[in-house]
């Protein structure tokens, strides 16, 4: 498989096949992130198409200071923000929202019941059919910035500092949002896998 950097060189030379390979590689990811900013799939598709146009027209100016992926997502977020940012994005981060429901702890702050282990069941192929859709829909229901941070960090694998630059948020906020998002997704997996284990 050709690297992004190799494809970029080809793209600069006008290789349309390189462009299609890049589109194939990132279209799904871009749509998913775009959808967190705009109210409909149709608008998300427009934003993504606009992003690719930005890539084709801007590729000669891409200096390679960041990775292609970071550059790509930054174009996407800039386009998305000018075409309909959701209201909830302006809500402040609630500093009191706990990672785990308070009723799971006793008065001393210790676990009231043991944490049920399921972490080794996640790789079970059959089980995956049950939890994978639940996990996808849980990601879809995370609030805007939390979802964006989780998608970029954990799904796309961008480093923390690149996520901050793409979304224009501070390192501290990035960490809190990631913490909240990951905690919620763990809870969803726990619900799915604990239920399977006890049935």
């Amino acid at each position, binding site marked *: 498989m050709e690297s992004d950097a190799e494809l970029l060189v080809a793209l600069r030379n006008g290789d349309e096949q390189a462009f299609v390979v890049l589109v194939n590689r990132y279209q799904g990811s871009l749509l998913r992130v775009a959808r967190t900013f705009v109210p409909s799939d149709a608008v998300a598709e427009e934003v993504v198409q606009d992003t690719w146009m930005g890539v084709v027209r801007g590729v000669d100016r891409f200096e390679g*200071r960041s990775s292609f992926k970071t550059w790509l997502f930054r174009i996407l977020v800039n386009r998305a923000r000018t075409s309909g940012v959701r209201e909830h994005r302006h809500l402040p981060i609630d500093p009191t929202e706990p990672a785990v429901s*308070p009723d799971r*702890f006793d008065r001393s*702050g210790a676990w009231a019941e043991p944490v049920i282990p399921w972490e080794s069941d996640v790789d079970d192929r059959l089980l995956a059919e049950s939890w994978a859709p639940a996990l996808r829909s849980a990601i879809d229901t995370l609030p805007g910035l939390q979802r964006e941070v989780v998608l970029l960090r954990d799904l796309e694998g961008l480093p923390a500092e690149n996520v901050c630059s793409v979304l224009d948020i501070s390192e501290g906020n990035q960490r809190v949002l990631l913490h909240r998002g*990951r905690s919620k*997704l763990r809870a969803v997996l726990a619900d799915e896998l604990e239920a399977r284990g006890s049935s």
Partner: protein
Amino acid sequence: MNLLRRRQDLVCRQVVELVNDYLENVLPRAERKRFERHLAGCPHCATYLEQIRVTVATVGRLTPDDFSPEVSQEFTELYRAWRAEGPTPGDESG
């Protein structure tokens, strides 16, 4: 001395809020030590930490939806149109 140490110990409810900073390797040294000391004596929090790790890895393995040949064709045509129009000035550089 013993009493002083106990007062500094973390409880499980606090540990779950520090798990991500621990994984991100941003806990100050003293805080990290307290975290690890708690973990050494608390199998439940150790399980919790492992579950967060597994959650992160699991999210990373979700694959984007498949992509149809028609869309590839559409993008090939878009590419030709955009190239023909030439670059736009003052866009993002990276």
